[in-house]
């Protein structure tokens, strides 16, 4: 079995699992949580392209997510755009913004890059808050229309689930493809040694900006989907905290692993739901779990899984 055949099998299995999950969760509130897991997976995969592959940190990805959501929201509620058109417009706008700011920002390295992206995130967040006439300010913007496709309106948990997950699966598929291609290799090469990558003919600057743009564009798409499924958005969802949470998802899941990003997103979205039984202690436990997970699986959940699988295999052989 070649690697690419294995990839196809894994992806198909994953896709099938995703498709039948709602049938098992019928009528359960978790179905709704899985909608958000889908959105967060999209975001984590997008950030992983940048952080896990190219090794470039972004502490401002919530801003792209938010921009996608707000552009979609504003275009549909104020200018009566068709939601699908608004979604395309949002993705394109954010792509262009990312491309333009990408050049100066990605010239920076390490903690300077962290700080610049953080600053960008804060600036955008402030704009969401302050341009009250456009965004409704801190108390948010409501009445964003749902997406629809012919007779289907995506306004129930079930329809939203399939809507979101189709996009999420597509994002994952394309990212897996990208990871195993010459572009994916060039990105990982940048991660390991920028100088050597350049000398091998990789246009490091351009490639970084390109992947930044792609990453932002996917995030914006996730933002649009979020806006049209929630029908309400407020700046609180797009702040610094969420940017950090996204980075956490990627790292907890496993840097450079697409399925890891899914695991990270799933765990971090589900965890608060499970921790609700602890009431006021939930935050403390959440913090503790983050630490414990990282200590025991420094390579991320996916690394943990692989180690486990290897151990089981060895058992079998022995």
């Amino acid at each position, binding site marked *: 079995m070649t690697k690419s055949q294995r990839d196809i099998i894994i992806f198909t299995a994953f896709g099938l699992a995703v498709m039948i999950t709602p049938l098992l969760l019928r009528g359960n*509130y978790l179905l709704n949580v899985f909608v958000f897991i889908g959105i967060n997976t999209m975001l984590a995969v997008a950030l992983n392209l940048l952080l896990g592959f190219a090794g470039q940190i972004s502490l401002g990805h919530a801003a792209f997510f938010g921009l996608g959501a707000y552009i979609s929201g504003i275009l549909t509620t104020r200018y009566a755009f068709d939601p699908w058109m608004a979604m395309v417009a949002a993705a394109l706008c954010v792509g262009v913004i990312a491309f333009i700011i990408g050049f100066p920002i990605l010239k920076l390295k390490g903690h300077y890059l962290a700080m610049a992206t953080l600053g960008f995130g804060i600036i955008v967040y402030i704009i969401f808050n302050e341009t009250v006439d456009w965004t409704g300010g*801190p108390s948010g913007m409501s009445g964003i229309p749902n997406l629809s496709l012919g007779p289907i309106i995506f306004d129930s948990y079930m329809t939203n689930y399939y809507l979101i997950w189709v996009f999420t699966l597509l994002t994952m598929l394309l990212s897996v493809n990208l990871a195993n291609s010459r572009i994916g290799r060039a990105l990982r090469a940048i991660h390991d040694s920028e100088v050597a990558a350049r000398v091998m003919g990789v246009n490091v600057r351009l490639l970084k900006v390109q992947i930044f743009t792609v990453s932002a564009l996917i995030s914006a798409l996730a933002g649009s989907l979020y806006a049209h499924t929630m029908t309400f958005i407020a700046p609180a969802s797009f702040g610094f905290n969420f940017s950090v949470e996204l980075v956490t998802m990627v790292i907890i899941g496993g840097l450079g692993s697409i399925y890891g990003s899914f695991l990270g997103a799933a765990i971090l979205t589900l965890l608060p739901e499970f921790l609700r039984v602890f009431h006021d202690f939930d*935050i403390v436990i959440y913090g503790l779990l983050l630490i414990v997970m990282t200590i025991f699986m420094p390579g991320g959940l996916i690394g943990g899984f692989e180690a486990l699988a290897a151990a089981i295999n060895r058992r079998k052989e022995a």
Partner: protein
Amino acid sequence: AEPVKIGALFSITGPPSFLGEPERNTAQMVVDEINKSGGLKGRKIELVIYDTQGDPTKANQAATRLIKDDKVVAIIGPSTTGETMAIIPIIEKAKIPLISCAAGVKITEPVKKWVFKTAQNDALAVARIYEQLKKRRISKVAILTVSDGFGSSGREQLISQAKNYNIQVISDETYGPKDTDMTAQVTKIRGSQAQALICWGTNPGPAVVARNVKQLGLKIPLYMSHGVSSKKFIELAGDAGEGIILPSGRVLVANFLPNSDPQKKALIAYVKNYQKRYKTEGDHFGGHAWDAVMLLKGAIERGDDTPAAIRDQLEQTKSFSGIGGIFNFSTQDHAGLTKDAFVLVEVKKNKWILVKE
């Protein structure tokens, strides 16, 4: 008998925890009291509380869980306007009555069939302040509002109502919810022609503003919002708090009310019980939850405990004396309060006293 399940969504943690915490405490306290004294028509109330952390996404998830998993008959909360707006579509679709504890006007305007609220509109608080400014012949004001949901909705009202009172907002500044120094803004206001400063925020920001005003020697009258109507504010502002005036629910000055006041009994009981149970002062934010639970109790006692029956009875609530004021709901009004819900109070010798009008 089976308990009646009521859901509650509060931002117990996160930036709006100053709202969610007293609300959660109060709701739990009221429900326990009801259960102790025999419950609702002989049935106990089970209160299912989820924390929303001030985040619309979390509010959405929690509301879904209350509806789908816990199968509650009614929901109280959330604490903020944003979170309330975020879950209204779910509520309307699930046909479950919601009594929000947030203040935003747009929650109940236009009227939504299943949505009510107990928090007084900011509009009413602003009106109270402007009335007094007009009496004092002040026509130029500076406003300094916090850039969160509470502050921005206050700011909106301050600006839009000003012309009704012939007042001019000549300086419009804001500060961040976590800012720890506002000297720059106050300095700028000091350089303006403003005759009064209105600061709209919740602890601790306004206390910092009060201190900065004192430090910079700004001598104009200082007004604040009901967001800081608690003893805590006086403690934080120290002597810089002296003379500050603000609109407040009656709960802050319950003892000063005339005995004829229909709310007085409930207010004093609330303050006493809260103090006893939580060792700290109950405030009017907690009062929103008190009102919400008691409104539900009334509605269920009068009718049935199905969501539809509760809704119908809520809408018919008349002259209910709560902590926030006297509620009169109708098909056109799901907020139910008038500006009498607010009184003006002032800090004198480290105590809140009622301003004589």
